[in-house]
């Protein structure tokens, strides 16, 4: 039987993962012959790591997704530096003039940074001005890093997830950062106004100049931005992080249904049954665009379908969990962040002074949404309850505070209950020590000999001594 010929359009995180998932199920290509077409000339890389590259903690050299010999060992026909221009009959037509026959096409064209129509951001050719960069690609990172230096003023256009990660990274490199955000609070898609206010305070305390409810009106190269209220933001560099748009050009040209992204069903099929789409370019009702995890979950399902490993596989969506990856700011936003009573049980905790905010929404005892800023343990725990649907603990406050693990404050031996374990290694309780004392073991060595307390790991030596002292004092008082 001839293998099914599948052409993947796009060699980004979703396309690359899809190819891996196919080869995981069909290692030698018996069932599926894979061609992957990548428009960029360099191999696929991990976009999630770009914030770390920008922050300077991770070298750019380690972000590659695949080894140089990946295509060969994975038996993939990898075509880099070329684009798909058309599908004609059963052939994919590439910009280098070559063609590839196909049985199925997978669109993984991703998304691109959106640049707001602000005067001066683009030059006359339509390209970005020399001191303007988007923050989306590895090349963007290089462009930004070539321009930053400690003390340089930098403006970030956009106070969403990516904009704030860029702002934090640039701050760490010693830049003077201003974030310009057109909405009244930061990260308005993931965070409510109260949470946004706490977030803005945290950033301000770190030294970021946050301008809310303001848009850039004009960019002057070498000078900075003029905002819509007439104020001025000095900037040697403007980083545009104003959102992304799904890359749907090819899909539209092919006449596929597009609504914000390429519309797909639970089998990741577009309006043309031979064409699938996944990742950032695809629009599925169960997913929020821009999350890597969605594309990876979709890759698993589509690989199951394309290889026949599980013809019943369906993609039902990926619960949305947004995490801000910015040093010193711990923010998680998940599910129904805007839920409010009586539709849901909602608990909030607002501590702007210490830069902490938490909102927890539950329905039927299950976590359905949360915004958590400054409580890293709670973020991890609540996300787990959200993802697994495990019923939430009855003590909601404990959940909000994360796993409170108080480091036992030293207590007077008098306050210890009789059955408190003093020496774990030898199962000696307070009562055991008291009994031994009453039987004549009235010194620490005598208590040790009588009960074996302290003779294991020895960590209870202080406690045992404290109890001996307490008993001695009691005796003195009594006599």
């Amino acid at each position: 039987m001839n293998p099914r010929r599948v052409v993947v359009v796009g060699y980004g995180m979703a396309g690359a993962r899809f190819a891996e998932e196919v080869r995981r199920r069909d290692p030698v290509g018996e069932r599926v012959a894979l061609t992957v077409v990548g428009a960029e000339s360099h191999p696929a890389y991990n976009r999630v790591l770009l914030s770390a590259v920008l922050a300077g903690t991770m070298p750019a050299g380690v972000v590659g997704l695949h080894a140089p010999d990946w295509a060969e060992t994975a038996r993939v026909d990898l075509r880099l530096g070329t684009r798909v221009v058309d599908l004609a009959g059963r052939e994919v037509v590439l910009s280098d003039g070559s063609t590839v026959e196909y049985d199925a096409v997978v669109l993984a064209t991703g998304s691109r940074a959106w640049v707001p129509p602000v005067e001066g951001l683009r030059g006359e050719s339509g390209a970005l001005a020399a001191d303007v960069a988007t923050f989306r690609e590895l090349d963007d990172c290089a462009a930004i890093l070539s321009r930053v230096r400690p003390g340089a003023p930098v403006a970030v256009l956009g106070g969403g997830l990516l904009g704030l990660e860029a702002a934090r990274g640039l701050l760490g490199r010693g830049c003077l950062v201003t974030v310009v955000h057109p909405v009244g609070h930061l990260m308005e898609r993931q965070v409510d106004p109260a949470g946004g206010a706490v977030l803005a305070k945290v950033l301000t305390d770190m030294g970021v100049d946050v301008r809310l409810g303001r848009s850039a009106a004009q960019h002057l190269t070498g000078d900075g931005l003029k905002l819509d209220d007439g104020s001025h933001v000095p900037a040697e560099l403007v980083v545009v992080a104003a959102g992304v748009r799904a890359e749907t050009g090819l899909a539209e040209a092919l006449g596929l249904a597009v609504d914000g992204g390429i519309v797909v069903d639970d089998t990741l099929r577009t309006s043309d049954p031979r064409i699938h789409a996944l990742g950032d370019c695809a629009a599925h009702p169960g997913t929020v665009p821009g999350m890597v995890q969605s594309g990876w979950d979709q890759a698993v399902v589509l690989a199951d379908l394309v290889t026949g490993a599980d013809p019943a596989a369906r993609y039902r969506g990926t619960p949305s969990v947004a995490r801000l990856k910015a040093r010193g700011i711990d923010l998680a936003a998940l599910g129904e962040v805007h839920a409010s009573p009586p539709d849901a049980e909602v608990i909030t905790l607002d501590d702007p002074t210490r830069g902490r905010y938490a909102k927890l929404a539950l329905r039927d005892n299950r976590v359905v949404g949360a915004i958590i800023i400054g409580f890293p343990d709670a973020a991890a725990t609540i996300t787990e309850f959200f993802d697994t649907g495990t019923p939430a603990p009855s003590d909601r406050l404990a959940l909000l505070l994360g796993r409170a693990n108080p480091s036992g404050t030293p207590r007077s031996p008098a306050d210890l209950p009789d059955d408190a374990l003093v020496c774990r290694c030898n199962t000696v309780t307070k009562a055991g020590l008291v009994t031994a004392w009453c039987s004549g073991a009235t010194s620490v060595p005598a208590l040790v000999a009588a009960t074996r307390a302290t003779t294991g790991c020895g960590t209870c030596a202080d406690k045992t001594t404290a109890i001996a002292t307490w008993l001695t004092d009691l005796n003195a008082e009594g006599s």
Partner: protein
Amino acid sequence: MQTQGELVTRLAAPGRGDTHCPYCALQCGMRLTGTAVEPRDFPTNLGGLCQKGWTAAEVLRTPSRLTTPLVRVDGELRAASWDTALDLVAAKLARLRDAHGADSVAVFGGGGLTNEKAYLLGKFARVALGTAQIDYNGRFCMSSAAAAGMRAFGLDRGMPFPIDDVARSEAVLLVGANPAETMPPFVQHLTGALIVVDPRRTATAERADLHLRPRPGTDLALALGILHAVVAEGHYRGDYAAERTTGFEAAWRLAAAWWPERVERVTGVAAGDQRRAAALLAGARTAHILTGRGTEQHSSGTDMVGAWINLALALGLPGTPGSGYGCLTGQGNGQGGREHGQKADQLPGYRKITDPGARSYVASVWGVPAESLPGAGRSAYELLDSLGREGGPRALMVFGSNILVSAPNAGHIAQRLSTVDFLVVADFVLSETAALADVVFPVTQWAEEGGTMTNLEGRVLLRTPAVSAPDGVRSDLELLRALAIRLGQPEHRFPADPETVFEELRSASRGGPADYSGITYSRLRAGDQLHWPVPTTDHPGTPRMFLTHFAHPDGRAHFTPVDYTGPTEPLDDEYPLLATTGRVLHHYQSGAQTRLVPELNAASPEAFVQVHPDTASRAGLTDRALARVTSRRGSTEAVVHYDPTMRLDTVFLPFHFPGAQRANLLTNPALDPHSRMPEFKVCAVRLESL
């Protein structure tokens, strides 16, 4: 340049009654006067003993002690003479061998047996019985760490450094180990910053500076997340990796996809805590990563350990003086027991049975033709699972193991045991497994016999008899010798004197990875501190391995590309909780010994299920109520212990208890593809009131 001393280091020569505790791999030094125990200063326990150690001598005088062989007659075990029992067993085994081939008889050993017993048992199986079907309970214990150590370093020694290195370490990452309960005196060595990875807030986790509590079964993802943080935060030791390792890039490519926030979503461990762990380890001048059963007893256990080793390599720890990766061996002779031939795929000296050179060398020491040695046999669970089946063994001989309680999927194993024609058990009490046997031989125990043990740091210890054995009891070596002779072996081939057996073990291990040839009883009696390999009698031993090169032919440590796949058993509405199993301070393994000690039994008398109060109340259970815990394989009964520090999705059960209280009635026999380790540490269950 090896920094280990050129000179032999020596402790005071052991005196009269000086011995070692019978239980765990710490092998605490103790002195027996009659049956009174006193702790003794020794590098592993520094004069400490836990309650098990203090009460160890109780087992020597337990009223349940067997003192005569038992033979099943009309369905009942009855006392018989040694000759009667030996003749019966030899005749039966010979008949089976003749009728159905040598593989119709299987042997099951244990990690508590001395090196001499483990060695002679392997030889007995391969030479006297001619069977390939031999394996041991260490497969349920150390096998994943061993396989991962082999893969990474080319050699497996639990801790390839002496225990005092841990005490001097500035930071220790302890994964899936609870030494505060399982080897309490060890805790004295944890003096630096301590990071504990455990789903439960254990006694050990209580002491930690940082406690990471992953969802059970997700440790591998956590290791990848910390490795990711090490690289992303600039802590990766590229210089070390370039000089001493291979394979980082492939391992990193998989870890690159596991950034801490993604790992947080899988494990429940806060991304910030993963970074904190990375920074703590990277910031320490000396650091250790130590793994235990919690991260090893999984169907991906070898890869899990591999992921922790990758982390250690990225931080430049293994083979660096004062730092390292090690696993905390569990059973008393868990280390030596896996080196000298009671493993299905192995010959003495940690040689591979499939290696033609190893076969011919060992065959020459044994005086038999190499081609007469059988090949590799089934691994422990597969061996037990094959009992009584078409092509499977029809008889089983068990030494130093209580499989009815300790094997996974225990209900199924009991059923397999019931199908064999002939079950022989050597033990000193009537364990749950012995009670099913056709013949039971009463054997000596620790303080009554001589022999060597190899502790968790690869240190070889000599046990000398401290008390005399009761009348009617013989050593396992005497038993093997008597059976071998009856099976037609020449007498000289199966000595019963431990030192004579050890002399032969020295020859058989010479030139192997675990080379004992330079170790002698007289050196051990003189107090020489000897960590294997010891290739010559004037060699000082090797407390620290890998200082100049690793054991792979290229001399380098190998990163292993490992990815997270998750536990094999999914949760669903019927089985909505994760169960994990482990030990409590008062009991050892299947409890066959410790349950006989009144003081220990009083402290921990019955099985319990540790559970968050919310989870219990959802099942209609209150504290101290009797619960039924059910998995896809079986049910067990346990008393509810409320614990508000438990994760809401997880219950914990100790596995020491017999009968209807066996935690292993629940556990999943899904096996690791490399080590054949079952998935003891996570399975899906439901909790109900009884």
